[in-house]
Structure formats: structure tokens, C-alpha cells
């Protein structure tokens, strides 16, 4: 079930990732033929990013574990692709700006989910106390 969902999301991610690269290539007025490898890589990146989002649906996993796992998968792929394709070097500040932005986005994702669930749990406890005190 999880693998099926991951595959479907991965396929959608591949199309989205490839489409984004195609748009960027066209905006840069470059021929698409020469950008084939970049389009495929963009697709793979989208597939992994979206496909691996199923970790958020693993019931036993906490928000922190799911967020950290997704971040590590996406970051590892980003690191491999960027270095192997020669898009950036480690000394390039843009590489580290992107890493910083990724970390910030993932912390924000965790924080929003954490605060949202914490508020809901507080409300549930309040209702439980009201109900129990009304019946004691």
C-alpha cells in the first residue's frame, strides 16, 4: 500500500520535476535537445521528493522522524546531483544558500505541524476534563 502510493506520487513528482526543468530551459531560450540529461535529473529529483513524502503517512513515526527522514533523502539526492552534474561546487555560496533554505523550510514544516497538533491535543484534553468533571 505504502509502496503503491510512493510509486504513484513518484511518477507525479517525475512529471512535475521534468516540467519545471523544461520551463527553466525554455525561459533561458536554450534548445531542449541539449538539456535532456537535466530534464531527466529534474524528474528524478521530483520523483524522490514526492515519492518519499509517504514517510509522513507512516503511523508509528513521529513528525520529527518523518521530517528528518524526508529531509535527509531530499538533501542526499540534491548533494549527489549537484556535485555529479557540476551545477555547483561546495565552495559556491549558492550551494549553501540552497541548503540553508531547505533546512529552514523543513524546520517550518515540522513547527507548523507540531503547533497544530499540540493545539488540537490541548483542546481534546480540555473537552475530556469538561466531560469527566460533568460526569463525576
Amino acid at each position: 500500500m505504502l509502496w503503491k502510493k510512493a510509486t504513484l506520487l513518484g511518477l507525479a513528482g517525475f512529471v512535475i520535476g521534468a516540467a519545471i526543468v523544461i520551463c527553466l530551459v525554455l525561459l533561458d531560450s536554450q534548445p531542449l535537445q541539449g538539456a535532456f540529461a537535466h530534464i531527466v535529473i529534474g524528474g528524478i529529483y521530483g520523483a524522490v521528493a514526492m515519492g518519499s513524502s509517504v514517510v509522513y503517512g507512516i503511523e508509528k513515526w513521529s513528525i520529527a522522524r518523518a521530517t528528518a527522514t524526508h529531509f535527509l533523502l531530499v538533501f542526499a539526492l540534491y548533494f549527489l546531483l549537484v556535485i555529479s552534474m557540476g551545477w555547483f561546487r561546495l565552495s559556491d555560496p549558492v550551494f549553501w544558500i540552497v541548503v540553508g533554505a531547505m533546512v529552514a523550510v523543513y524546520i517550518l514544516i515540522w513547527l507548523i505541524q507540531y503547533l497544530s497538533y499540540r493545539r488540537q491535543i490541548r483542546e481534546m484534553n480540555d473537552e475530556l476534563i469538561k466531560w469527566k468533571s460533568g460526569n463525576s
Partner: protein
Amino acid sequence: MKNPVEIKIQIDPQCHDPVILIRTDQKTQRVEDIVHAIETCTNSSYPLIVGYRDSEMELLSQRDITRAYVEARKVRICVGKEVYESNKSLSFLEQQLNPDRFIRISRFEIANIRKIASFDFSTTGTVYIRFDDGSITWAARRYVRAIHQALSRIEAGKEE
């Protein structure tokens, strides 16, 4: 017989289904027993649940069940500190259990919402449920909304 329960029947043409009101100064074990007895004879659509312990079969009142869960591919039913085994699937049990009392809290577990003492949310983001008997389990986040709605329904109706 000591302290016999006074029973009054009030005929009300507006009331098509019988309504039972228990007037008491405090909720004692005796009151609990009366509620249990009424429930047992009125909730015929929610049967007793068959549980096995030490290869002996017991019929479990739904009211007494704290939770039912899957562990090592077996369905277990908790009644206080006692753990029974069931030869039915969790989905089958879910169909037999009273939906006003039991709710799914994960793919592997159903809990008696009236036996929940509190909810806890850990820093890492796991939802824990503590029951009146002191036992603790976790709930899947995707069921939190449903649990919240069930609690709101009970609170609004001030049932039991």
C-alpha cells in the same frame, strides 16, 4: 434488600423511545452497575465480545474493554490489566463494537474513548493516549481529527 432502587415510570406521549434518567447525589459503583445493567439489556445490537485467556473463553462486556489492538498478527483485547486474545480480525471487531464508545486510533488499534484519561503530545510529535487504568498507547496523527470529533460529540451530549 437494602436501599432498593426506586423506579418511576412516566408516560409521555411525546417520547417515542424510552429515556432513562438516573437521579443520584453522586456517581457510585452502584450507579455504574445500574447503568451497566440497563446498557446490557438495551444494547442488544452491540454483543458481548468473545475473548480467550489461557485457552478459556470469556464473554467480555463492551463497557469493560479498554482497547483492542494487533500485536504479532494477533488481535488482543484489554480489559483493565487483563489481556485476552480474539480469533477475529480487528476490522470485524470494529464492526461489532459500539461506535459511540469505540474509535479507531491507528491501523492497529481501537480504543474505548470513555476510558481515556488524557492525551499527550511529545516533543518529537507522537500522540500518546493514557487510559484510566494507567496503560499508555500511541495514536496515529491521521486519526486525531476523528478522535477530537468523537470527544466533541460526547461532550456536547454529556453522555453516560
